[in-house]
């Protein structure tokens, strides 16, 4: 590695080395409690998939360049030189980690391996060794922000083509647009994904609840965050912040996308609008009687997969269960419980990297398959497109014989008017515990 490149990377390391990171790098006692916490290691027991081992590579570089002992006595502290081999190791550990933070829940010191992996990803971005596909997706998102005027007319044509499918789920009053776009002063800016399935059910639900809402021109997912590039993460996020401020909305509702919700919620900073997940919004509508659902439309045992970025890392745990109490006649909770839930294995940009990661994703998520099958559920509901794709791939690969659904689609398909029989009292719904799987 060229010395100038190394110097630039070390500068990047130094500038982004937070106090929390230093603490994490200096406190790991190698107790081993994180060994079984990682779904990758639990499914494929190899040293390189232990959370502490992933962090160890960053730790050794830190020892070499930022600690006196590592500089002068590198062998004593197992210091590691930052070179091409080290970058390759960083790539392997960072992009086999989904950032689910399950290891953090088990660590007695609360070490955030995902934060340390963000340093690994940052060095890869600095060295231009990041995954090419994630980089292209991030740049495409940024380009859309820059050239919106060029694409706007076509986007509106595409949205128009979905209107009849929204009306099939919920009829709007005459004169009301089924999918309003660019509405100044709307209460809600809904930020979807590119796909129709993140727009149609949500539109029907907002219309059924009588909300004054508008659809964002931009997709919610932030590929800059998957990439671990703070500059591109910010640029992608700012497209949505600028749109929300321009339209003067009171609330930004993130679609069913874990990373989108977490980035918008935790990185938007102080804004004149609040950020919520559509899961929270749907739960509120049901709670306040703004929408009603007919649970007889959802037959068969149902379980729920908590997307890590929405539940463990986003705090939205009770709301999906509240919704499912309205929808499901036989809801079966997975075990271990939501805080310790196994990641689906598709996070961290792995699904977005396409078929290149398919084999790894299937092998590394064996524990998730076992966790789902232990419930005996026939329908697996989730609230993240990324998780939905990964669970669908697992369903095909392991011939699980289940149906994978998104929560918004379940709600939209069960919507009923006040004249129809709505959900039975959810308080009467019992949650069936399944056999516990050792964590």
């Amino acid at each position, binding site marked *: 590695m060229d010395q100038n490149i190394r110097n630039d990377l070390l500068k990047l390391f130094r500038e982004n080395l937070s106090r929390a990171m230093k603490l994490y790098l200096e406190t790991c006692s190698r107790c081993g409690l994180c060994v079984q916490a990682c779904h990758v290691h639990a499914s494929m027991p190899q040293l390189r998939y232990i959370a502490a081992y992933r962090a160890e590579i960053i730790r050794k570089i830190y020892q070499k360049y930022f600690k006196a002992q590592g500089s002068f006595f590198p062998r004593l502290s197992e210091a590691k030189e930052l070179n091409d081999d080290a970058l390759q190791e960083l790539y392997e550990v960072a992009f086999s980690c989904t950032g689910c933070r399950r290891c953090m829940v088990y660590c007695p010191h609360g070490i955030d391996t995902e934060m340390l992996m963000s340093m690994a990803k940052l060095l890869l971005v600095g060295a231009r060794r990041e995954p090419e*596909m994630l980089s*292209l*997706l991030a*740049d*495409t*998102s940024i*380009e*859309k922000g820059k*050239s919106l005027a*060029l*694409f706007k007319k*076509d*986007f509106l*044509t*595409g*949205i128009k*083509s*979905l209107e009849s499918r929204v009306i099939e789920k919920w009829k709007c009053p005459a004169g009301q647009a089924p999918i309003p776009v660019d509405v100044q002063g709307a209460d809600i800016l809904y930020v*979807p*994904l*590119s*796909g*129709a*399935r*993140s*727009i149609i059910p949500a539109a029907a639900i907002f219309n059924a609840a009588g909300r004054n809402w508008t659809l964002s*021109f931009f*997709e919610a*997912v932030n*590929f800059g965050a998957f990439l671990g590039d703070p500059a591109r993460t910010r640029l992608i996020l700012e497209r949505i912040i600028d749109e929300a401020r321009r339209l003067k909305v009171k609330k930004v509702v993130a679609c069913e*996308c874990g990373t989108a919700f977490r980035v918008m919620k935790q990185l938007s900073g102080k804004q004149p609008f609040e950020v919520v997940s559509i899961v929270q919004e749907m739960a509120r509508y049901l709670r306040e009687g703004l929408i009603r659902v007919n649970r007889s439309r959802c037959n068969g045992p149902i379980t729920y997969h908590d997307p890590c970025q929405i539940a463990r890392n986003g705090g939205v745990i009770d709301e999906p269960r509240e919704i499912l109490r309205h929808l499901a006649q036989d809801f079966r909770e997975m075990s271990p419980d939501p805080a310790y839930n196994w990641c689906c294995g598709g996070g961290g940009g792995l699904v*977005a*990297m*396409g078929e290149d990661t398919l084999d790894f994703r299937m092998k590394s998520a064996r524990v998730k398959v076992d966790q789902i099958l232990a419930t005996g559920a026939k329908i697996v509901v989730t609230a993240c*497109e990324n998780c*939905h*794709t990964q669970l669908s791939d697992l369903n095909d690969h392991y011939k699980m014989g289940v149906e994978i659904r998104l929560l918004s689609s379940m709600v939209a398909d069960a919507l009923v008017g006040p004249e129809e029989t709505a959900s039975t009292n959810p308080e009467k719904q019992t949650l069936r515990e399944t056999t516990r799987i050792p964590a």
Partner: protein
Amino acid sequence: MNDEIKADKILDLKDLPCPIPVVKISKGIKEVQIGQVVEAHTTDPGSLTDFPAWARITGNEILKTEKGDKVFKFYIRRVK
């Protein structure tokens, strides 16, 4: 007009989850020679903005977009 563009490869990208259409067109365009044309079929409204932005980033050329009731067809020439 449609008959004037001859596709060298057709990609069915209908009903795929986000962001797979962009992932697959990125790979698919590399499977034809420079100057050849890929015809991509999508159903996601987002592809009407994603694909032009992707083309600007990658330097490829969208020759034509057909917007049907449910399916969008893109004719893309590989330039680089």
